[in-house]
C-alpha cells in the first residue's frame, strides 16, 4: 500500500446543486471556482445531483482522469449519503476512508434560505474545512473476524423462546439461559390473552414443547449470566447454573429478560385491604377459578405510571389488560357492574380498539380522571370499598362503592437489569429498560455489535409485539452467523506505546471495555470492541492515543480552516 503521508494530496471537489435545494440559495458556480483555489485541490466541478447515477460516474471518472487521491462532496449530510459516495470511491479504486463531505444543504442552504450571500460564504468555508480534513485523511482497513454460529439467549419468556426457535430453525445452535426453574416468563402467570382471548396455558405449552424438543436448543434453567468477555463472533460467556460455572463460546447474544410488574405498595389501600388487587393478582384468581361473584368491580388505570416525576412512561399494555379482564368478568358474571377509571385510553391498533368497543357495548363504564385529581379509595369496617373520583366529562366528583378494586400497574425494569447491562456493556435508557442503538433506524440492535434486544426487556409490550421483535432479532443475529464472518469498524483508537505511561485512565474511561493493559502495563486496544467514540483520545493524559479518521490534526485543521481569510 502507498504510504499516504508522503503522497501529495490531490483532492477532487464535487459541489451539488441538489436541484434548487442548494442551487436555489447558494451560488454553486462560485463555490466551485473558490474550491479550485484551495491548496491541493486538483479538480472541482458542479453537479445537478451528485448522488444520481450520473453524478456517481462523474466522481469515478474524475478519480481516474485527474489521478485524485482524496474526494470531497459538498451536498447534503454524511449521516445519509456518506456510504453512497464512499462506495463510489471504492469502486474507482480509492480507499473509502479518503472521502469527506461538506454539508452545504441541511446545515446551510436550507437553514439560511433568505441570506444567499452569507449562505454562499458559509458553503465556501464548509468546503475549505472539508478539504483541510481530506488532505490529512489516511486509508483504513476493516479487519475481518470469524463468527461462531451459536447464539446465547438470556431470558426464557415468550420473546426468548421465539427468538431461540427461529434461530434454531435457521440452523444455528442456541443456548437459553433462564433464571427461574421453568421457562415461560410472565406468560406462565396469565389467564387469557388479549386481544384474541386465547388460553395462555395453551399458548405457553405449545412453544415450550417446541423449544424443549428442538435438537439445536440447549435450555439452561436456574441459570444466570455471570460474565461476558470478547466481542461479536467470539463472546466468552460464563453462566452460573446451580452455583456451578459453565463456559460458553457464542457468536451473538439476545437480551430477552422481560420486565417485572409494579407492586403498588401503599397506594389505594393495596396490601392493607385484601379486596384491593393488581391485575396480575386478578389474572391468578381467574386462572384458578377462585374469583367469587362480585357485585361491582372498579379498575384504576395508570397506577404508578405516567407520573410527573419518577416513572413517567406509559406501560402500553395496561389499558388492553383492564378491558380484557373486564370482559372476562362480564362473561363469567353478566350482572357484575364494571368501572374502568382511566386518565387516557391507549387501545391502539384495530384489535384493542375492537375490545374497547365491545366493552362499551357490554356496559363497562369508563370514567376519565385527571392527573391533578386522582381517585381515592377508602374502606369501611366491613371491608366495603368507596372510590371517590373526579369525572372529567361530568366535571364533578363521583362516588362509587365496590367489592373489588383492581389496580392496573405498569411493567417495570427487572431489578437486576443494571447488573446485566454492566456485564454486557450495553446501556439502559432513562426509564431503566434496555436502550436500543437508534429509536427509528436500529430499534432492536444495541450499539455494540452482535448484541440484540427484544420483548419487554426493551420497553413494555404485549405478546404479539414481543414476538415480532423476537423474530426480528433472530434474523438480525442470523446475519453475521450465516456470513460466518464480519468486518470490524475501522474508526477505532490506537495507542502509541512509546508515549503511554500506563496510567490506566483510558482503561477506566472506555465504556466498552475495549482497552486493557498488557503484560508490561501498557494500554492496548481491542479494535473489534472499540466503537470509535474517541473519548479515550481526548482524555489521555499523555496524548498517546490516536483516533483513526478523527485525529487531532484532522479535527484541528478542519476547525482552523473556518477561521482563515
Amino acid at each position: 500500500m502507498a504510504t499516504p503521508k508522503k503522497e501529495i494530496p490531490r483532492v477532487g471537489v464535487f459541489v451539488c446543486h441538489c436541484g434548487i435545494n442548494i442551487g436555489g440559495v447558494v451560488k454553486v458556480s462560485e463555490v466551485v471556482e473558490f474550491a479550485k483555489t484551495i491548496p491541493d485541490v486538483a479538480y472541482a466541478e458542479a453537479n445537478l445531483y451528485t448522488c444520481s447515477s450520473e453524478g456517481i460516474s462523474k466522481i469515478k471518472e474524475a478519480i481516474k482522469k485527474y489521478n485524485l487521491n482524496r474526494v470531497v462532496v459538498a451536498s447534503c449530510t454524511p449521516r445519509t449519503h456518506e456510504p453512497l459516495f464512499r462506495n463510489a470511491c471504492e469502486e474507482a479504486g480509492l480507499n473509502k476512508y479518503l472521502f469527506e463531505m461538506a454539508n452545504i444543504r441541511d446545515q446551510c442552504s436550507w437553514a439560511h434560505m433568505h441570506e444567499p450571500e452569507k449562505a454562499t460564504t458559509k458553503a465556501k468555508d464548509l468546503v475549505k474545512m472539508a478539504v483541510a480534513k481530506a488532505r490529512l485523511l489516511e486509508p483504513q482497513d476493516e479487519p475481518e473476524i470469524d463468527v461462531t454460529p451459536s447464539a446465547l439467549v438470556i431470558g426464557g419468556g415468550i420473546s426468548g423462546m421465539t427468538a431461540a426457535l427461529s434461530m434454531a430453525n435457521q440452523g444455528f445452535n442456541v443456548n437459553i439461559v433462564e433464571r427461574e426453574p421453568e421457562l415461560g416468563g410472565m406468560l406462565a402467570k396469565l389467564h387469557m390473552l388479549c386481544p384474541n382471548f386465547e388460553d395462555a396455558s395453551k399458548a405457553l405449552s405449545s412453544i415450550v414443547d417446541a423449544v424443549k424438543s428442538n435438537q439445536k436448543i440447549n435450555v439452561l434453567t436456574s441459570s444466570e449470566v455471570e460474565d461476558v468477555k470478547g466481542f461479536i463472533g467470539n463472546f466468552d460467556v460464563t453462566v452460573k447454573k446451580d452455583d456451578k460455572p459453565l463456559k460458553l463460546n457464542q457468536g451473538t447474544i439476545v437480551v430477552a429478560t422481560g420486565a417485572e410488574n409494579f407492586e403498588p405498595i401503599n397506594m389505594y389501600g393495596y396490601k392493607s385491604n385484601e379486596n384491593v388487587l393488581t391485575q396480575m393478582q386478578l389474572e391468578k384468581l381467574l386462572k384458578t377459578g377462585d374469583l367469587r361473584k362480585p357485585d361491582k368491580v372498579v379498575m384504576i388505570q395508570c397506577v404508578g405510571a405516567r407520573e410527573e416525576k419518577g416513572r413517567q412512561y406509559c406501560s402500553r399494555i395496561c389499558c388492553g389488560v383492564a378491558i380484557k379482564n373486564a370482559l372476562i368478568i362480564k362473561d363469567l358474571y353478566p350482572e357484575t357492574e364494571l368501572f374502568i377509571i382511566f386518565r387516557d385510553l391507549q387501545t391502539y391498533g384495530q384489535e384493542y380498539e375492537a375490545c374497547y368497543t365491545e366493552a362499551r357495548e357490554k356496559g363497562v363504564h369508563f370514567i376519565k380522571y385527571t392527573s391533578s385529581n386522582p381517585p381515592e379509595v377508602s374502606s369501611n369496617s366491613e371491608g366495603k370499598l368507596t372510590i371517590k373520583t373526579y369525572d372529567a366529562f361530568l366535571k364533578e366528583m363521583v362516588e362509587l362503592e365496590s367489592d373489588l378494586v383492581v389496580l392496573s400497574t405498569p411493567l417495570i425494569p427487572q431489578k437486576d437489569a443494571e447488573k446485566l447491562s454492566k456485564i454486557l456493556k450495553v446501556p439502559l435508557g432513562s426509564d431503566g429498560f434496555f436502550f436500543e442503538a437508534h429509536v427509528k433506524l436500529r430499534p432492536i440492535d444495541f450499539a455494540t455489535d452482535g448484541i440484540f434486544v427484544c420483548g419487554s426487556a426493551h420497553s413494555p409490550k404485549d405478546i404479539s409485539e414481543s414476538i415480532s421483535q423476537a423474530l426480528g432479532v433472530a434474523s438480525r443475529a442470523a446475519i453475521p452467523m450465516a456470513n460466518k464472518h464480519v468486518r470490524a469498524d475501522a474508526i477505532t483508537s490506537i495507542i502509541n506505546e512509546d508515549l503511554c505511561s500506563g496510567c490506566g485512565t483510558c482503561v477506566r474511561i472506555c465504556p466498552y471495555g475495549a482497552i486493557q493493559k498488557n503484560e508490561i502495563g501498557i494500554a492496548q486496544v481491542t479494535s473489534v470492541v472499540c466503537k470509535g467514540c474517541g473519548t479515550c483520545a481526548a482524555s489521555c493524559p499523555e496524548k498517546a492515543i490516536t483516533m483513526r479518521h478523527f485525529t487531532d490534526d484532522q479535527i484541528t485543521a478542519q476547525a482552523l480552516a473556518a477561521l482563515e481569510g
Partner: protein
Amino acid sequence: MEFEPKIVGFLCNWCSYAGADLAGVSRIQYPPNIRIVRVMCSGRIDPDFILETLIHGADGVLVMGCHPGDCHYIEGNLHAERKAKMLRNLIAETGLEPERMHLEWVSASEGARFAQLVKEFTDRITKLGPSPISGENPNKVILENLLAAKRTAGDFRLRVIVGRERELVEDKNAYGEKVPQEKLDELLSEAIKTEYTRNRIYNMLEKESLSVRELSKRLDLSTQDVLTNIVVMRKKGMLGVERIEGTTPIYMSLEVR
C-alpha cells in the same frame, strides 16, 4: 461594517449533528455564522481543539452533545461536560471571556432547539464583540495567556483529574474512600491555577531568559509566587539557570516533552 462573529461548532454525530440536520430539513432559519465540525462523540472533543480554535481568533466555540442519558456511547457527553467545566475555569484565568465557549445538549429530534440555541449563542457573541485576539491588533497579553492555558490543558495531572472525576467521586479509590465532589472541584481549580502559572512562566522564559524579579513584573505575580514555582519547575526539569548576573540567577526554559 456590522460585526459578523466567527463561530465554530463541535457537534457529535448521533444527536446534535442530527439535530442540526433536522433544523435544515424543517427549514428552520438561524444565523449563518456557525461552522460545524462533526465528531463521533462530544467526548472526543479535546480541550486542545477548543483552545486552539480560540487562539486562532474564533469569536465563539459551541460544543454540542447528546442529552445526559442519551449518549450513543453511554457517557461520552458527561466527559465533555467535565472538560467544559475545566475549560471555563481555565479560560477565566486568561482574561478572555469564558462565555465564548459554551456547551449545550441537543437531541436528534430537537431541530428547533438547535436553531434556537445557535441563535442565542450568536446573539450573545455579537453583543460581546470580536474576540480580543482576533483581527489586526490582537491583545498580546491575552494571546500569551491562552497559549499558557493550552499548555495547561495538556498537563498530565489535570487530564487525569478530569478524566477520572466520575471514578474518583462515585467509586471508591485505592484506599476505599470516595472523594466528595466539592473536594475534587477544589483540587481541580487548585491544579488549574498552579499549572497555569507555571506554564506562563515557562512560555515567557522560552522566549527570553529572565530573573525572578523581571518575571514577576512581566507576569504580574508576586516574587514569592514566582520563586516557589521556579523551585518546583527546576525539580521537574522544566527550567534551568542560563547564567548568573552578579548574584541574580537568570532562568531559561528547558525542552520537555
